[in-house]
């Protein structure tokens, strides 16, 4: 780690102002950023901790959507969203270990957009809106490839607003070492449409599987996937699994997510 200063503003406005300094970086739960700093892979001069901003904490439901403050930790979502959006709460309860869940935040996860992270799949499949200090971005426009998002320099994810589907489920097949998703599939069934988002699998990061969405919109059952195949092109090939294996898992996990959706 290199030496840095830290600031802990109390409002989004103060945080935005502090982040306008180009050597400043936002600090959420630090579960990704701190290990990066420890390995001396990043050297921000100033960290702007978002954890003291009360307007970024907690959740509320309004008009069929669940709005979660960007500073909300995974453990809070795991418990407090359980009654309103159980599939999302279940996802949060399987991120990392208790230490990670009690520090890591939804805003940090969505901002980081790790290609194997869980929340991006939920946001994309739910058709969520990413709320920042300056605008609202549809999930379809927000995720732009691994570790890449629509966020501008210094822009803060203040909340994520999830439309609540009729049924949903996230099926995660863990990478044995990190226990991030080797392949994770989030299926969300709305009255008129089914959305399927895949994480862990692709070099392009989280993405929708539109062929499955069409098939499932017509017939919401695992059988509807029988004739579909997933191309291994552009899927990740690493020491934990080949592209072909990931392609296979995408279909298996999707089927299981459909069967378990509630």
């Amino acid at each position, binding site marked *: 780690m290199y*030496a840095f200063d830290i600031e802990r503003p109390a409002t989004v406005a103060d945080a935005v102002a502090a982040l306008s300094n180009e050597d400043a970086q936002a600090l959420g739960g630090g579960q990704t950023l701190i290990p990066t700093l420890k390995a001396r892979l990043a050297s921000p001069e100033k960290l702007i901790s978002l954890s003291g901003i009360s307007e970024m904490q907690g959740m509320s439901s309004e008009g069929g959507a669940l709005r979660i403050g960007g500073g909300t930790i995974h453990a809070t979502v795991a418990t407090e969203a359980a009654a309103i959006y159980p599939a999302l709460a279940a996802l949060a309860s399987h991120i990392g270990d208790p230490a990670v869940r009690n520090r890591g935040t939804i805003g940090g996860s969505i901002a980081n957009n790790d290609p194997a992270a869980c929340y991006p799949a939920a946001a994309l499949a739910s058709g969520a809106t990413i709320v920042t200090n300056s605008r609202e971005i549809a999930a379809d426009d927000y995720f732009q490839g691994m570790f890449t998002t629509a966020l501008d320099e210094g822009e803060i994810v203040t909340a994520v607003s999830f439309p609540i589907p009729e049924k949903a489920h996230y099926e995660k097949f863990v990478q*044995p*070492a*990190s226990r991030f998703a080797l392949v994770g599939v989030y299926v969300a069934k709305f009255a008129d449409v089914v959305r399927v988002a895949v994480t862990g699998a692709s070099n392009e990061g989280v993405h929708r599987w539109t062929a499955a969405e069409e098939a499932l919109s017509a017939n919401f059952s695992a059988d509807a996937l029988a004739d579909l195949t997933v191309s291994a092109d552009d899927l990740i090939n690493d020491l934990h699994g080949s592209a072909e294996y990931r392609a296979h898992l995408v279909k*298996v996990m999707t089927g299981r997510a459909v069967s378990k959706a509630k």
Partner: protein
Amino acid sequence: MPKDGGIGAATTRREDVRFLTGTGRYTDDIQTHAECAAIFARSTVANGIIKSIDTTAAAAMPGVLAIFTGEDFVEVGGNPAGWLINSRDGEPMKEPKRPVLAHGKVRHVGDAYAAVIAETVQQARDAAEMIEADIEELPAVVNMKDALAGDNFVHDEIGTNQCFDWGWIEDNRAATDEAIKNAHHVTTLELVNNRLVPNAMEPRCSIGSYHPGTGDYTLHTTSQNPHLTRLLISAFVMGIPENKLTVIAPDVGGGFGSKIYHYGEEALVLAAAKKLGRTVKWTADRSEAFLTDAHGRDHVTKIELAMDKDGNFLAFRTETHANVGAYLSNFATATPTFLHGTLMAGNYTVPLVYVNVKAVFTNTAPVDAYRGAGRPEATYSLERVIDMAAREIGRDPTDLRRQNFIKPDQYPYASAAGLEYDSGNYDALMDKMEEVSDKAGFAARRAESEAKGLLRGFGVNAYIEACGIAPSNLVGILGSRVGLYDAATVRVNATGNLSVMVGAHSHGQGHETVFPQVVAEMLGIDPMSIEIVHGDTSKIPFGMGTYGSRSLAVCGSAVVRATEKIINKAKKIAAHMLEAAEADIDFTDGEFSVAGTDKKVSFGEVALKAYIPHNFPLEDIEPGLEETAFYDPANFTYPSGAYCCEVEIDPETGKVRVDRMTAVDDFGNVINPMVVTGQVHGGLGQGIGQALLENTTYDENGQLLSASYMDYAMPRADDVPYYIVDHSQGNACTHNPLGVKGCGEAGAIGSPPTVVNAVIDAIQSGGMNVTHIDMPVSPHRVWAAMNNAK
């Protein structure tokens, strides 16, 4: 008196109180006044020529006290290999020098080429980044086959990447070849014993200090054997007189083999301490542990089993490539040879064994002994090929093993691989295993799994290992450059309590609890009045340390011998106190009495007398009550076991879950069954880790891909089942006074083949003809194997 804490009592581990309450004292916890910090500059390439190292900018950084490079150690010796192995043609092994800091060339990612000493760790790290090293990257030698075929040498001066080409037993070679040629059935299996990173919870740490007034050096270090480290530093690496160097290994947070060896960082902190007259500390971070701790296993083996038409084993023949990495670590040459080849007859009456091992240098971290050291590799090869053979000839794997087992009336048994087994009963172990594992219920459990759409398999395994690593005579013949005995001093203090100084080192094994149980039993006193002192060369007589499941069998025996001497002397003192003849003194339950009278004195009274020798027969007995014994056993000890496990496989994903795991071991006599069970649990966890999860992967450039826990999968609690452990079938070791065999490695030796055998059984039950999958049997590999077999 000791009945509630003596031999056989499941006493809870007294050391755990400090470990569990955060009051253990590990090397890094030691903080001295005026301490400074060392940080190493390490190679980021696997193979490269050091063209120049410019330290000017680094030296000008704040807080920097000194910078060392390989230049500074050209004059000092090299870190040697502890075993000399001769090739089949009689040529001694190739032994390139292992320097303190890389000089001329860097040979693996993580190879240290410079060290910065600064006031703080942070300053040293900052300065290390300013070292300008011009290193010309060369193609890396990673794969062992390529290493042997090519002319790109890890060590140019030896002109080959082959360290040795060893044959065991060379005289059996022709007969073995002949038996295999003529056999009714030969089963052939090629397999990989995957490379493992030891992952001790506590990373390595060393603190060097130097007293300019006396010229004394002190090294605090994370070691499993402080005397061995002292010997290596004194006699080979730095030439510091042995009596001017104290090596202290305080609480050590796990070693699994990786802390047996002397590493360059230890020499560096001593050299720096002398140069600066300051205490110099280095603590590895986790990344350094991945890159530089000696790794384990890494064998590629072809094994053949020849059988007659009735399934009698006729011969085993193996060809192994053993990766030794870039430099020879201290036991690197013993592990794939005498700790591996000599076990290649297993539990069987096979008449012929021939083992060929080629040790290969590569641009990877050094490889050395890791929990089991050679015996897991032998067991895995044998027990996989036997399982495969049984399936090929349509025999039940358990029955085929039983048919070929050495029988109880055949001991002592001279194995075809050159060892003499002293005791055992492998059928009894199998019987017990089948009973406690509820093998009979397997069919019903398989039906239940199948109803859930899962495949269930049953895997069985038998193992024998050689531990209690000793005896000096035998290991000397086999190439060891050190003796392998151990030592203990029993000091009875004036107030009657005891300090027992032992050469074994406890880094998780529970010696502080178990050794007192032995002494308490012998003396009839409270075990809590006995303290174990270990890990400090200035306090203990001598010791070869702890590895190879040797502590109780070898050092424990030294404790017994020293305690016997104490009893002998105490009897003399008691006889004097009771005004009786020594021959009439009876010692039971901590009291000395005169046979046929009611005259008696307690052990405590005798102790006091020894130190307050008023009216003492000084011409016959010296004051004091302290005795030392060195113990060098007659043979290895031979624990054995029968293991089984049941796995469930999800056929859609290939994910394997170990549902049941049973370990029935013959450890001889058991001093503390709870500690033994704990040792087995730990070994099983590591074995399951190797079988299912752990994999050290270098890419073709020699970059370590699995260099953190994000990519190196360690077993977690939910990866392992509830274990069924039984050690009721002990056959006492016949040649040590406690009749103990050693239990520290068994779990890691016996479990990997058990798991893989079960996986193959499960897949075959699904109608797929998969005969082998290399470890780790990851979901991806299982899925791919099943897919290919469809």
